[in-house]
């Protein structure tokens, strides 16, 4: 279990002011916002961690960090946080509607990360469904930046339609990267689609990996993560080497309020990223 002290480092109870400096439309309902600190910035985020992002006048929701950029002013103060937000309700729609220059409040970093160091020396699978690619993007960047540390690397993506695939330009660039297998499957193809049709789970059959030494990082709708993890276990990947990111309603982000409790686990503190050896049994339990 991650020590709470480490997980909640830098977690001021009060959000720090950030400013939207860029807004990129990803799909019909999803944007990526680049946020720059108005003053002091937050501590650095590790891949897989999330922030509590506050849309003024609307409320606060957990959002993963989908990337980090060096800002104009340089140094940690200027570090930009990228958040990819899908408008599903009041708060997320509020964030989705922000424009460059608008302000938000941000707390964090919170939660456990993907921790790719444990994957070094073995094959790596990144399996993302839909918006699940957002928290995994920083991990893919790590795999691209330090290929020598890992064995065979595969990134498998699932989406509803080709138009719903996130970061299409970047995914194209990843496909061209040496030694990285990139596969994408959609439920409903359209004209001009040259990827696969089907579930992302079926793509596992295309990837090359030596199951006992493989580390898998999986994020997407819970049904998709369960199906992926079960298939990986069936193929011989050890459950503790399969890391999934779980989502439950979160409120405080610091493991105090209990909103995100799943069995013995407080997901904002002990998660959202957990090994399948712990997550699997918990997902069999509907509500505790």
């Amino acid at each position, binding site marked *: 279990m991650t020590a709470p002290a480490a997980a909640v480092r830098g977690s001021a109870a009060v959000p720090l002011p950030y400013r939207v400096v860029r807004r990129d439309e990803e799909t019909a309902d999803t944007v990526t916002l680049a946020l720059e600190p108005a003053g002091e910035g937050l501590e650095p985020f590790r891949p897989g961690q999330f922030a509590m992002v506050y849309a003024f006048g609307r409320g606060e929701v957990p959002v993963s960090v989908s990337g980090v950029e060096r800002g104009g002013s340089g140094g940690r103060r200027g570090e930009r946080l990228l958040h990819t937000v899908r408008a599903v309700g009041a708060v997320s729609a509020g964030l989705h509607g922000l424009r460059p220059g608008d302000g938000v409040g941000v707390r964090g970093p919170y939660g456990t990360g993907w921790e790719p160091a444990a994957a070094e020396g073995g094959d790596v699978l990144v399996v993302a469904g839909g918006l699940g690619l957002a928290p995994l993007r920083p991990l893919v960047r790590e795999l691209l930046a330090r290929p020598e540390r890992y064995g065979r690397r595969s990134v498998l993506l699932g989406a509803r339609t080709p138009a*719903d695939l996130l970061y299409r330009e970047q995914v194209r660039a990843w496909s061209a990267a040496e030694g990285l297998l990139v596969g994408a499957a959609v439920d409903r193809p359209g004209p001009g689609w040259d990827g696969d049709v089907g*579930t992302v789970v079926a793509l596992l059959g295309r990837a090359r*990996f030596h199951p006992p030494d493989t580390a898998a990082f999986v994020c997407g709708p819970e*049904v998709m993560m369960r199906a992926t993890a079960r298939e990986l276990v069936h193929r011989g990947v050890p459950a503790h080497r399969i890391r999934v990111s779980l989502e439950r309603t979160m409120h405080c982000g610091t493991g105090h309020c209990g909103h995100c409790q799943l069995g013995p686990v407080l997901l904002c503190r002990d998660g959202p990223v957990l090994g399948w050896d712990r997550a699997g049994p918990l997902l069999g339990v509907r509500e505790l």
Partner: protein
Amino acid sequence: MSTPAGGALAALTAGQRERLAALAREAAFPAGARIFEEGEPADRFWVVLEGRAALDVSVPGGPRPVVETLGPGDLLGWSWFFPPYVWHLGAVADGPLRVREFDAAAVRVVCDEDPVLGYALARAVGGVVAHRLKATRMRLLDLYGPRPGGGAP
């Protein structure tokens, strides 16, 4: 071991695979070639070695929607295993395709003669069908849709 080494027939013993191999040959389809057509007799089946095949459906007056794609290691076609041995979908080579092509009638005869092999193959084919059914059910949930069944971070 490295997936997808054995592919769809991986669960068979080496001896069983050898017996089937005697009824198979390597074949290739150029991009766009039709492999089989809905309603035709299912007299062959394939295991994909390289490339991708698309399963499609004929709809009147429009382009043929692709319902699923298959890649290396996948079994292409299972209608040959169950009466009335007629394809219920079409299949086309989605790019250059290299396959192992089996003579379905001959394989069925061998299965009748050697029920142990027949049972092993029935389990393998049944496994493939079950997998595709699970995948289809998952897609029916429209997980990535506006209100996903599970919620996505």
